[in-house]
């Protein structure tokens, strides 16, 4: 309180979170350096190289972050719809003028940099979601509020799907968690979990067997609740929907998904091994991580990293560098830092007076969580290859900036928790 006058802008800012943020960024820089390091050429520090650029991104990101702290907290809740609209607009623009890179039309070229609107759509959506919940206090018990929240999420999701960038689109499912916090029935999460289980079962087991299982489980619950009419009805409906879902998945899989997405799913489920083709990334990534063993090979000592065995190592597969050079200890530290950051953000969110700040905080935590889980899960082969970056660590300006903005907006809101929005 005493420093309130002297340090007005950074008053009440949660420095712990900022420190974690800087620590993770530094880990990112070190590992990008190691991924690109070549003993023959990199004797001098080079700003032209990717690690040089990343350093610039980190510094500009920090500047960006601290300038957000200078803004008025009200700005975000007031401008939330406009920011959301802007990102939707950018998503439309990218479909028209976007540059195709690796099959995805996701980048807008600006000078020598490329802007990736889908990265910014995340906090745009988060802001509007927070605004919607704070303004209308929906309880998510009625169809109308679920519908509105759904539209806010689905709109950018569809546009990103059209790029097509399935990985980034899936991230929007993480809004499930703030909605759950705000009152969405836990059944939705269960339904979601059930969908995933059925999805996997659909591939691994023969269809008649899965249907028999569903009918057996449905039958069991029907018998348990045979005296309650409404329950009998809804259990019967759920069973029918589950079976229908199986067929929809099969159809989507064969008709809608691109061949490379299909092989990715097949490789993740272990149905297919293709060490030279689509499975190459995952196999090489697992080899790199596994070869790090408990203590790692040491900084710049990873052979798989140094000799370029893991493709896209500085971006989506950056975690393989950490795994190889720093070992299980290093991985534990990184995951521990993320876990600490996530729990801290949620704790901060819960201490907010305003609903806007709380919902936004949950959105931030959920988005980061989703990225971390999918990215690391993909490098160790428990999730299909979905090209999304590891927050604050993967190489790339758009991703680093958008995560920085995402986090610092929340820090700004948090620092302002005493005031009213």
């Amino acid at each position, binding site marked *: 309180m005493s420093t309130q006058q002297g340090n007005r802008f950074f008053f009440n800012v949660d420095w712990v979170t900022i420190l974690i943020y800087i620590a993770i960024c530094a880990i990112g820089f070190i590992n990008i350096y190691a991924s690109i390091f070549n003993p023959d050429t990199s004797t001098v520090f080079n700003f032209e190289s990717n690690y040089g650029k990343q350093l610039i991104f980190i510094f500009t990101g920090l500047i960006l972050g601290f300038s957000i702290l200078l803004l008025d907290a009200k700005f975000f809740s007031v401008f939330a719809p406009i920011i959301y609209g802007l990102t939707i607009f950018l998503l439309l623009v990218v479909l028209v003028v976007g540059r195709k890179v690796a099959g995805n039309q996701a980048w807008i070229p600006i000078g020598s940099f490329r802007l990736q609107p889908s990265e910014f759509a995340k906090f745009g959506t988060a802001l509007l979601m927070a605004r919607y919940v704070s303004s209308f206090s929906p309880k998510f018990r009625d169809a109308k509020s679920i519908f509105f929240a759904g539209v806010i999420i689905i709109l950018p999701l569809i546009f990103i799907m059209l790029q097509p960038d399935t990985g980034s689109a899936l991230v929007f499912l993480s809004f499930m968690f703030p909605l759950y916090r705000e009152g969405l029935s836990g059944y939705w999460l269960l339904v979601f979990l059930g969908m995933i289980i059925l999805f996997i079962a659909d591939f691994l087991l023969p269809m008649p067997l899965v249907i028999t299982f569903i009918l057996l489980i449905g039958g069991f619950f029907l018998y348990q609740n045979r005296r309650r009419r409404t329950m009998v009805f809804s259990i019967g409906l759920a069973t029918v929907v589950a079976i229908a879902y199986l067929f929809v998945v099969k159809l989507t899989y064969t008709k809608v998904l691109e061949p490379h997405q299909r092989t990715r799913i097949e490789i993740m489920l272990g149905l297919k091994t293709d060490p030279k083709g689509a499975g190459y990334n995952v196999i090489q990534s697992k080899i790199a991580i596994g*070869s790090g063993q408990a203590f790692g090979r040491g900084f710049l000592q990873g052979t798989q990293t140094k*000799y370029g065995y893991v493709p896209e190592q500085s971006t989506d597969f950056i975690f393989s560098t950490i795994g190889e050079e720093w070992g299980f200890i290093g991985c534990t530290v990184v*995951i521990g830092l*993320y876990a600490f950051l996530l729990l801290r953000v949620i704790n901060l969110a819960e201490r907010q007076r305003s609903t806007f700040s709380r919902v936004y905080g949950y959105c931030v935590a959920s988005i980061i969580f989703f990225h971390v889980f999918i990215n690391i899960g993909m490098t*160790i082969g428990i999730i299909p290859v979905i090209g999304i970056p590891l927050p604050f660590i993967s190489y790339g300006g758009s991703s680093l900036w958008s995560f920085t903005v995402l986090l610092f907006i929340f820090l700004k809101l948090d620092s302002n928790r005493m005031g009213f929005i």
Partner: protein
Amino acid sequence: MDSLFDRKYTIQGLFLVVCLILLSKLFYIQVVDDRYFVSAETNVLRKIYTFPARGVIFDRKGKVLVQNEPVYDLLVIPNQVKAFDTLELCNTIGIDMKGFYKRFHKATIQSRYQPSIFEKQLSVQIYASLQEKLSRFPGFLVQNRTIRHYPDSVAGQFFGYVKEVTQKDIDENNGYYRPGDYIGKAGIERKYNDILRGERGVINMLYDAKNVPQGSYAEGKYDTLARSGEKVISSLDIEIQKLGEQLMKNKVGSIVAIEPATGEVLAFVSSPGYDPNLMVGRNQGNNYMDIFGQPNRPFLVRPTSGYYSPGSAFKPVDALIGLQEGVIDPEMTFNCPGGYWAGNHFVKCEHVDGTISLRRGLARSCNAYACNVFARIMTQKKFRSKKEAYDNWEQRVRKFGLGAPLDIDMPFERKGTLFTSDEYTKRFGKYWGYTTVISLAIGQGEMNTTPLQMANLMAIIANKGYYLRPHLIKAVGDKKIIKKEYVQKNYVGVDAKHFEPVIDGMEEAVNSPWGTAVLSRLPNIVMCGKTGTVQNPHGKNHSVFIGFAPRDNPKIAIAVIVENAGYGSTYAAPIASYIAEKYLTDSISNGRKGQVEWMKEQVVLPEMPKPKVKIDSKALDTTKKLAPPAISVAPKIKQPAITRKPLEITK
């Protein structure tokens, strides 16, 4: 609201659970499972091998028998190949365009980024002309290794040959060999392969994902240099080996000479032989098939694998056993009416010798004498059964190194034939006796020996009662290590005193007017010997001579077999005498040089079995095709082959 606040813990708990799932999977692949570590090593580490030179082989006097010659393998890295004058390359290394594409395709399949062998074993000459142009053939490089070279072109079967390993060799040697390595396949190269091959050098190279080498692993800490094979000193005397091969030219048979005091093999001649230089280089495969198809099986190592009944050469053994058993004494006489009646069959003798004792019996090679001795050995009163009598005899014969391999350091040695009593019972039923097997007395019947065993028999007599295991390699390495088992005396269980009368008889065979082996007589040196005329069921008799010289302090024991050459005295005896003379005096005396040259010219080949009609007509057809009118067409087709012919000279 409070109930909703609790959902914070659900969400935080879910986050933590997911983090723990990630960590446990990481723990599994990083700490528990080390397969990934191994995969990482195989990803980046490649072992590059350097080939050692095989060990040099010397003869007993220190002359080099086998040395190494550099050859050059042309390698290609397909993805580095750019457009170039392919025809020029083809002409330089002597292949055609079709062959070029075939090889290039094979290399591409193997690896696009790594060097694979394009053409093996280019000679120095081809390499010289290729080297100048190599810069014009991007993607091609040359790696050198060495191949065997035999300056004297003799003793092919003794050396054996070296060949690229087969999958079977790789499997049998627990991964020591890799495809493209060479291994001794026959002869000394095979038997002493582990000593001769040396140690491969290894360079551990790091490769990146594009297969570009990135320097050596751990600053070469685990690299090793190639260590060439150890040198090996053979017991052969190259001069008499050469003479032996010349004498046996156009004859089929074998010469084995042993130094009795040491068991060292001095000459190891197998005829027909082949030039060992044909079994190296680019044309090895073709030459192999070529030699393989020749008559009389040049690849058969006759000294250790040829089976011959010893014939009369076995008679000294009869006499020695008789003397040791005490059933005869040197002065005891038997009557020779021109043969011997054994029960109801008759063993014919070449002469009617009348009353005959041991010396005469051996000198005249009397069958009747041998049969009488054999009969006396087998009918001693101490034996309770005929089987026991035979077992006793068999055991005594076995001690002379017959019926079992002598374990010479040569692969695929055969053991000869010597029946046990059980085998006879199996063949003849319960009732058989010495009369049934009487032909054993004159070295016929169920008895086969290798020339090596015969020569060893002579070494035993020369040593008066023992032999040292015959061997072809007398020492290994710079320290000249001699194996222990080669200095151990193997006694045959006959007292030295019994050898005198037998040696007397063998001396008489060579040096008396009535001896059978007079043609092996040596000027100024007392040679002892015994001829054998071995009945051959497939054709003319084999000519056999075994002997040693000089009588006092013998230096050489020798066995000579000339197949289908008739009497032992006609070919085998003189050949043995030339060898002995050459070895003992280092030259052939002037008066005998003409005889040696005459002997070299003699052609004594077995009659070929009459070819079947079918083959005959075919052979006639081909000769017809080669007849004048067709020839005018042929040269045109052969034109390209002619232009590259000079380049094929590899040696």
